[in-house]
């Protein structure tokens, strides 16, 4: 029985890397007592796979992992048992049974949506109007966005344009009366053409003449991961059904 689990990651948990999150869930599932399936052999491991690793420092409300169960447990009950095994900052939000022929999360993910904001707003003295005008030139009106992408093997040319499915900039006011700029991005994700949102913003700000961006200039939140093709993406969390 294949199951897709959706979870969120926030607070201090953003500093826990992907490999440690995998170990964390292996132990959490053992604590929950859910009847997960194990591989054969002298060192059996849980049948578990994650949609896409989340970088250290990023928060998320849309992470997914697929597991296999030996026997049925109602979705609500399983969700509660798993949630009881969580630490602060980790929340399990959905537990859905997948059709037997469903592709796993890792191979089906094709896009991810992100929200980014400045860590140090004083470094970005731009008005919302300036930003939106620059975005129109950089993205909306551009036929291509050629970039050089550094990979493990060297550098390669890449056109960002078809890999960015949506890009909006808005201004929000928080409860303190401060205003903040929010960047929303929907970008290609997966084993081929995996686009990091900060890469897009780096090139965007370069187009504005700002070239001194550091590696960690934005708070980045992954909202969700999606499958399918533009413009008909479906959330990974929409696949399958709660079963009681």
């Amino acid at each position, binding site marked *: 029985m294949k199951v897709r689990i959706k979870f969120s990651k*926030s*607070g*201090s*948990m953003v*500093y*826990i*890397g992907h490999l*440690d*999150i995998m*170990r*964390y869930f*292996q*132990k*959490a*599932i*053992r*604590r929950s007592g859910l009847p*997960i399936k*194990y591989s054969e052999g*002298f*060192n*059996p*491991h*849980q049948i578990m796979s994650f949609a896409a690793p989340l970088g*250290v*420092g990023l928060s998320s409300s849309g992470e997914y992992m697929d597991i296999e169960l030996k026997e049925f447990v109602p979705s609500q009950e399983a969700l509660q048992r798993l949630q009881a*095994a969580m*630490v*602060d*900052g980790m929340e399990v939000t959905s537990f859905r049974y997948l059709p037997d022929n469903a592709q796993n999360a890792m191979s089906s993910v094709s896009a991810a949506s992100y929200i980014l904001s400045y*860590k140090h707003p004083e470094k970005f003295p731009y008005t919302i109007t300036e930003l939106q005008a620059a975005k129109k030139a950089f993205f909306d009106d551009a036929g291509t966005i050629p970039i050089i992408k550094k990979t493990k093997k060297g550098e390669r040319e890449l056109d960002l344009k078809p890999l960015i499915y949506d890009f909006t900039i808005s201004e929000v006011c928080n409860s303190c009366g401060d205003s903040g700029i929010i960047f929303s991005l929907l970008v290609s994700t997966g084993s081929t053409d995996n686009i990091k949102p900060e890469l897009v913003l780096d090139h965007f700000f370069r187009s504005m003449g700002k070239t001194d961006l550091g*590696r*960690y200039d934005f*708070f980045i939140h992954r909202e969700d991961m999606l499958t399918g093709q533009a413009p008909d993406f479906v959330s990974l969390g929409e696949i399958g059904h709660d079963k009681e």
Partner: protein
Amino acid sequence: MNKLALSDDILMQLDKPARYIGNELNMVKKDPSKVDIRFAMCFPDVYEIGMSHLGIQILYEMFNRRDDVYCERVYSPWPDLHKIMKEEDIPLFALETQDPIKDFDFVGITLQYEMCYTNILQILDLAQIPLWQKDRSDQDPIILCGGPCTYNPEPIADFCDLCYIGEGEISYDALLSLYKDMKHVGNYTRAEFLRKAAQIPGIYVPSLYEVTYQEDGTIAAMTPRFADVPEKVKRQVLVNMDEGAYPTKPLVPFVRATQDRVVLEIQRGCIRGCRFCQAGMVYRPNREKSLDLLKTYAKEMLDSTGHEEISLSSLSSSDYTQLPELINFLIDDCCGDGVNISLPSLRIDAFSLDVMSKVQDVRKSSLTFAPEAGSQRLRNVINKGLTKDDILNGAGMAFEGGWQKVKLYFMLGLPTETEEDMRAIPELANEIAARYYEIPKDKRNGKCQITMSTSFFVPKPFTPFQWAPMYEKGEYLRRAKIVNDTMKEQLNHKSLRYNWHEADVTVLEGLFARGDRRLAKAIYEAYEEGCMFDAWSDYFDVDKWHEILERNGISLDFYVYRQRPLDEVLPWDFIDVGVRKEFFVREWKRATIDQVVTPNCKMQCSGCGAASFGGGICFEGKN
């Protein structure tokens, strides 16, 4: 978002920021404003090492059972964070509340090995607490040390307010209550508290003792400064092991710790009495936990952590009376889906081989023996009961059961060691390999692999070898070379491997192990000049250390290379560990003159003195 002491900008620069954020599973959460005592429990090494230590988890559990105490943890910031904290003036914080530990009531530091001494100073320095105890005010926390190195705390005595000698289960309640009462009444001063604390059994307050020296540099006397300060500090012992607190909900770190498993302490102390082994002496008498309790703990801990592995902790697991029952229980009742058992320190015999073949992949795993010395003569000197027949028979059985890899552990530089003893190490390994090749070719699986490792012997306080000399680095390496050269002469040399320990750090370890208060200044200067993480070979700077020792007039000839006379006053003589000095003298003579073994505690009582604690093996079967 929960509060963090370090900003996002800093955390993102660090290697493994998870070391500094707390929030681990089973972390204790309390409202600090609702407790009387805030206690920072520190392991002065990196997080992954410190989190693997069972002792801290026991004390964490024990302290936090008290409603009036909040015990939190702190570990050594890695050099990347160290630099940032110094530059940005960030005070060292505890993981739970992320509050600066300088505002705590106590900072308890466990001393597990001598090479962490500069890390103690790093902790105090980053915490912004005065390094020297004499410079601390009533507002500073009480700095308290415990753990095995406190069996000679003298090299770091001037940095501690007090040392706890023995097992934490006994006297902490009295110490904490004394502190709390003085604070409530309003008559707390550091000096007055320390004076009263010195009267609690097991509590040593270094500043209340004066040490005088003879002209030749040896100690003349160590005298209490006041009449109400005891001359001897008695080691504290938990007589009934079932009565102690145990962490049935241990912390589970996010980053992989060295010990990433449930650890079940099955007993304390050891019946064997190996003459080089400090743990075998200072944890006497041997005391077992009851089987039923261990069964309960095992289940609870696997459930509460979700760990995939459980391991037994003790000095010699094979000596646990009900080991077969315990292991069979673990295999049958605990180890369903995906739980492994790891079995350390098992004597190789039919039982252990049978068990091991059930829980591990025979072809991949290796068999471990610790003969410690190559020849029977030297094994008698060190009182290691293991004989060549034991080893060859054990290895033979294992080879027939499918094992191919054997690891052998030895020490070089033991008292009375001759070239013959050194050569006996590869000769023994060769015989083990030969035993493997006795198996018909069609029934064995290629070559065997026998790995010998040697460390250099370091004499430790409260052992029969506490008077023994050490050797200079060159001599250690000469001995390792003899082993290596002899190995190459062996018939089966292609199946043998040899690796040896660093000699530089061994000499320093020997210095701190048997040093006195006069070393403190050198440790201080070493830290000021950048030494820390000395236990890590990447960071250990031997040249700097030797320069500092020389500058401070600290002679390795005096502290390390000298055979000490049996009647010399030793820096640790003020501690009463229960095992009497006369026993150590007797054992030293049996080792070096008679060269005979002493029966273990189950065979015959040797009258070491540990019976004075009133429990354990000393009284079993004697009612």
